[in-house]
């Protein structure tokens, strides 16, 4: 297709999208207005099920099946990346040279690493109470671990990140989410039904199945991201062609 034809097609599509988008936006309820059909249903349901964080209630209780799908999207994406980035037959591993680290950076890293890990666990564990949850906490855990690379070098990062264990943890946590749903079938009427006792609103143990699913997602996301970053870091630092 020639350049002029491509530009013409683009402008046709752009005008069509802009028109449809503009018309749809005109029909939206006003921003900050009193019309909230979903919140009016989801928030009372969340509170009735003793889950203080309504978003966590929607994600893990009211629409838990959607989250199962999202969890496996991440799982298969990381699996695909790890397969594509694995060491091929014509590649060999070189030992990365250890870099010079300023003492202040080393000190800051040593202090920050445990703080970041505790923050990650906190965000996962309080998913049913405060903003955050398995995904957010898992990402904090995974990225926090890489402070070891900033404060020391790649060999130290490899020591604090047992790849085989995390590979297994990733798969088992993803499976645990799916398996927890079976409890709903066994003791309730539907897959992923919240059959556990709901507890007291605002307590760490409230929300029934929500904290358990959050923990599974936290382990899954945390280990999946570490495995993903490990595959990229190996390629960027260690693996050479030929």
């Amino acid at each position, binding site marked *: 297709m020639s350049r002029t034809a491509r530009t013409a097609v683009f402008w046709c599509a752009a005008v069509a999208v802009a028109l449809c988008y503009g018309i749809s936006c005109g029909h939206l309820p006003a*921003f*900050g207005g009193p019309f909230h059909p979903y919140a009016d249903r989801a928030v009372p349901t969340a509170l009735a099920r003793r889950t203080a*964080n309504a*978003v*966590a209630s929607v994600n893990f209780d009211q629409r838990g099946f959607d989250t199962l799908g999202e969890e496996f999207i991440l799982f298969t994406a990381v699996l695909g990346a790890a397969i594509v980035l694995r060491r091929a037959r014509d590649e060999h591993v070189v030992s990365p*040279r250890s*870099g010079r680290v300023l003492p202040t950076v080393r000190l800051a890293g040593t202090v920050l690493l445990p703080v970041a890990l505790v923050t990650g666990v906190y*965000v996962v564990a309080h998913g049913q109470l405060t*903003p*955050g*949850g398995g*995904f*957010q906490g898992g*990402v*904090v855990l995974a*990225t926090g671990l890489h402070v070891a*690379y*900033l404060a020391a070098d790649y060999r130290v990062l490899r020591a604090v990140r047992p790849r085989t264990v995390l590979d297994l943890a990733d798969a088992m946590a993803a499976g645990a989410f799916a398996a927890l749903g079976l409890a709903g079938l066994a003791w309730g009427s539907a897959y992923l039904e919240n059959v556990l006792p709901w507890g007291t609103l605002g307590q760490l143990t409230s929300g029934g199945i929500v904290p358990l699913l959050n923990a599974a997602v936290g382990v899954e996301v945390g280990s999946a*991201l570490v495995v*993903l*970053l490990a595959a*990229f*870091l190996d*390629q*960027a*630092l260690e693996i*050479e*062609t030929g």
Partner: protein
Amino acid sequence: MTPAGILVDLTVLLVAAVATAAVRTPDPVRQAVVLSQLGLLLALLFTFLQAPDVALSQLAVGTVVTPLLILLTVRKIRRQGGTDGGAGRRGRGGDR
């Protein structure tokens, strides 16, 4: 207009400006840095729109993971490109 509304409008304008800057940055290394700023601004915007859960995800993924993956990819490509001078040196091509 409410103060929250002004904050939202201001952040939307900033997001649009930084997003345009990201598109107009040809060098992937610089682009990763601009993307990280864009992630930070989006996280702010989500916070002002009272979506702290989304803001946390955006902060972690948009500000940290995506730019890091871009930087690591660029470093791998540069190493393979036969630029021996920069092959073993840390800090070049943004290996962190």
